[in-house]
């Protein structure tokens, strides 16, 4: 299982800052406001600018829509991936985002649809029939007023033109012309019309271009003096050039206007010889109303003509506002979802990291609100956990140290138990064996497989049965322990054990187990017996040897006294005295042996070559064993290490053991064994480097020693030969023991094997 990653450090985006968000929103609103203002003036700016505004709006709409789709797609994809990857709290965040999106998208969509319909219906209402009819009527009124004035001016111009004879067009006829025009002015006054009348004569410019020259001008007295005649001149030239009536209108500084009509004065051949311009004044109040009506009509018509683009502008603006609201709401919803989910996610990841052991983790609170407090509480919890963990680590280290000590002590005790000669078995409260040390294994012939088995089952073995009461020590009422001396018969030998069973009591006296301690006291008992025999021997030597000499002397005196007696008496006395003397001598020999056994000196050891000693000793038998079949077979191992020994005493050991073997085989002249083999005594030496001992092994192929007698062979005054003092092997054992070694007797196939182990120097 992978270790959970530490929570990633939160990324501080600029948009996460409320100040940045506020600035962005204000800037967006300002841009929007500016666009709305420009769009509102779309009919007043140049057409290209209108197009630019329109397409800019649509471009902005598309950009916002693309941004909205991007934001939505990115966040939804991220949520989907988070859910796929089982990111903590991904499902919670998805639900939160879905709820916020539903809360924003549905109302925004409804507002968008409703608003679009409202705009469309508003445009329909703008171009309603009544409004159009009113404006059309106003335009027609203004137009009719203008056309009436234009028609009046045209009528006047035609009238004047008809009244002026072509011949009168000349600088010399100005007075005649003035009279004609005065009549026209009088007619104007009669109809309350203010105006001017100009008469022009056609002239040819030097370049041949037709031009006009003003002959006479009359005007109403009430006409503003600021009228500009240049316009009338151009109009006259235009009429002269085109040969037809030319209308015109000139706005004046006072707000009024002059409605002009120029008409050519034709000669008899149809050519234009001059022109008449009649201008009628339109008062400012009338002219202003006319213009107002026409401007209103034009505005209406312009809006009507540009209805499509205008509706597009309004829809684009509304769409932009709606999209801005939508993207703002969406963004804000996603932002809020993130603001809510991120600390929770951080906490979850932090908890996982702490669970993985990163107790030094500290989360950075992003806010100062309740979620920030929660993060701070999490940090405090992590710090407390870290402190507790430190304390636990300290306790654990202390415990480990103590365990190490206990383990060392246990190993020390186990080592001691393994090394000690005392056998130890531990039992649990149920009586099953927990441990068995090496000495117990050797003493009882067990191995480690008995561990876990009930002690009663293990000790129920035939040779171990005397130990059974010890296994029941825990069952005895108020038993604290048990001590017994037990003798086991194992491998045809008797083993004397000092056995002690101790019950282990825990708190409240509850029995937790028991320990069986087995001490092999066989050597001790043997030593005690030898010591007892030495004491007996010393007493026998002391108590028996002293009267032997007077007895012998008395016997000899009796024999001398009866030298002169009757032959029968002398023979009897001599026979008796001889018997007394022989037996006394035998007793003396016996006593001497006892004395020797009792007062045998300690060995004076020096490093010596055992092989050489064996060879020298066996050489003594070379003459004795020449006639018979019995033969000695020395098998001496080379490179034998030296042995610290008393050569004289060890020679006695070798001789004693070889003599015993010779006697067991039937003497020097012994016949072949029943199996046809010649009587043979093998004297071998070897070295056990692991145990550091040098062995001397003397074996024969004789009849062997009964198993029951093997352990008694080394006891004083025990002999299987029916003669002798029985001290030979006892002395051998004593010598070997005083050399720090040991001797054992075993059975060969056939025969007997004596093994002497001596420590190497």
């Amino acid at each position, binding site marked *: 299982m992978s270790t959970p990653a530490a929570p990633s450090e939160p990324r501080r985006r600029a948009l996460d800052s409320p100040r940045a968000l506020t600035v962005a929103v204000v800037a967006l609103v300002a841009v929007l406001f500016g666009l709305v203002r420009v769009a509102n003036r779309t*009919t007043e700016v*140049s*057409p*290209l600018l*209108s*197009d630019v505004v*329109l*397409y800019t709006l*649509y471009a902005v709409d598309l950009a916002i829509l693309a941004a909205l789709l991007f934001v939505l797609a990115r966040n939804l994809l991220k949520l989907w991936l988070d859910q796929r990857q089982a990111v903590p709290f991904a499902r919670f965040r998805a639900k939160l985002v879905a709820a916020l999106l539903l809360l924003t998208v549905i109302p925004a969509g409804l507002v968008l649809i409703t608003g679009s319909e409202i705009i469309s219906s508003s445009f329909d209402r703008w171009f309603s029939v009544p409004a159009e009819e009113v404006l059309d009527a106003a*335009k027609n009124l*203004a*137009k009719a007023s*203008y056309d009436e004035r234009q028609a009046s001016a045209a009528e006047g111009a035609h009238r004047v033109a008809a009244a002026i004879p072509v011949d009168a067009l000349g600088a010399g006829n100005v007075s005649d012309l003035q009279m004609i025009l005065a009549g026209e002015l009088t007619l104007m006054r009669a109809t309350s019309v203010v105006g001017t009348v100009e008469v022009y004569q056609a002239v040819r410019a030097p370049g041949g271009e037709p031009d006009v020259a003003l002959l006479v001008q009359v005007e109403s007295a009430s006409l503003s003096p600021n009228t500009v005649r240049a316009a009338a001149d151009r109009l006259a030239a235009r009429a002269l050039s085109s040969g037809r009536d030319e*209308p015109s*209108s000139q706005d004046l500084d006072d707000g009024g206007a002059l409605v002009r009509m120029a008409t050519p004065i034709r000669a008899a051949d149809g050519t234009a010889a001059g022109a008449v311009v009649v201008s009628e004044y339109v008062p400012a109040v009338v002219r202003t109303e*006319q*213009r107002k009506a*026409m401007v209103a*009509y*034009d505005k209406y*018509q*312009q809006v*009507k*003509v*540009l209805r*499509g*683009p205008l509706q*597009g502008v309004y829809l684009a603006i509304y769409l932009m506002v709606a999209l801005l609201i939508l993207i703002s709401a969406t963004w804000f919803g996603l932002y809020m979802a993130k603001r809510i989910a991120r600390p929770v996610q951080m906490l979850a990841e932090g908890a996982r990291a702490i669970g993985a052991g990163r107790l030094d983790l500290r989360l950075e609170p992003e806010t100062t609100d309740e979620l920030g407090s929660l993060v701070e509480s999490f940090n405090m919890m992590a710090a407390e956990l870290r402190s507790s963990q430190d304390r636990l680590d300290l306790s654990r280290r202390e415990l480990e140290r103590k365990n190490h000590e206990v383990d060392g002590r246990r190993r020390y005790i186990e080592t001691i138990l393994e090394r000690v000669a005392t056998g130890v078995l531990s039992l649990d409260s149920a009586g099953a064996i927990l441990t068995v040390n090496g000495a117990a294994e050797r003493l009882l012939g067990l191995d480690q497989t008995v561990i876990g088995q009930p002690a009663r089952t293990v000790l129920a073995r035939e040779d171990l049965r005397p130990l059974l009461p010890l296994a029941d020590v825990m069952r005895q009422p108020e038993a604290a322990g048990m001590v017994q001396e037990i003798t086991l018969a194992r491998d045809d030998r008797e083993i004397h054990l000092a056995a002690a069973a101790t019950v282990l009591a825990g708190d409240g006296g509850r029995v937790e187990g028991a320990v069986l301690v087995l001490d092999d006291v066989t050597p001790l008992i043997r030593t005690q017996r030898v010591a007892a025999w030495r004491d007996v021997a010393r007493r026998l030597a002391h108590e028996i040897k002293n009267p032997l000499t007077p007895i012998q002397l008395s016997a000899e005196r009796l024999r001398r006294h009866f030298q002169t007696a009757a032959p029968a008496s002398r023979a009897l006395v001599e026979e008796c005295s001889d018997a007394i003397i022989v037996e006394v001598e035998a007793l003396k020999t016996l006593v001497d042996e006892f004395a020797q056994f009792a007062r045998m000196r300690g060995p004076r050891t020096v490093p010596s070559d055992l092989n050489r000693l064996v060879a020298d000793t066996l050489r003594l038998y070379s003459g004795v064993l020449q006639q018979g079949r019995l033969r000695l077979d020395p098998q001496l191992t080379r490179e034998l290490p030296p042995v610290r020994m008393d050569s004289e005493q060890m020679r006695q050991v070798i001789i004693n053991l070889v003599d015993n073997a010779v006697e067991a085989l039937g003497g020097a002249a012994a016949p072949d064994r029943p199996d046809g083999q010649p009587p043979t005594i093998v004297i071998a030496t070897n070295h056990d480097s692991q145990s550091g001992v040098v062995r001397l092994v003397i074996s024969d192929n004789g009849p062997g020693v009964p198993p029951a007698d093997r352990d008694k062979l080394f006891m004083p005054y025990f002999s299987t030969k029916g003669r002798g003092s029985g001290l030979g092997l006892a002395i051998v054992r004593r010598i070997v023991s005083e050399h720090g070694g040991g001797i054992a007797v075993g059975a060969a196939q056939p025969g007997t094997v004596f093994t002497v182990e001596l420590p190497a120097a």
Partner: protein
Amino acid sequence: MTARLRVAGIVALVVLAAATLAAADVKVTTLVAGGRVYASFAVPSAYSSDARDVVKSGLPLSCVFTVELKRSTTLWFDRTIASATVMSSVKFDTLTGTYQVSKEQDDKVIWSDRTDQEDQMRTWLTAFDRVAIAARDPLEPNAEYYVQVRLHVTPRRTFSLWPPWGHDDGTGRADFTFIR
């Protein structure tokens, strides 16, 4: 899938055809005199019903003609040798019923007149005579050139999502061989 693709293809062809038909044809004639190229062109259909509605509403209507002298290039865009932009505009006075027509070249008014005749106004508005196209370098003798005229009318009564830039209301072309 194939049926859908077929329908989509037909729709695309119809849209393309409509766009092609919507653009008016500009009749272009060229004149080479004194090493210079002059272009005369007329597109009466530019004064459409929509344009008429715009004019009648009192809004000024502009026809911008972009005249380009070009030389064909193989495997690449045709090379523009020289270009000129002329514009005609008209404003209708509802009260007097007269059209004020003016023509500009390089942002300078080169001609202006007034009429109450709509046909006259249309002729003035949609035709230019002998617009000079000044090439920086002399034309290559016996080389093939052509003059392309593109018309853009503002304002529009209709709106499409296609940007106004690059969308012409009329195009025309006249090929010629420059012979010295």
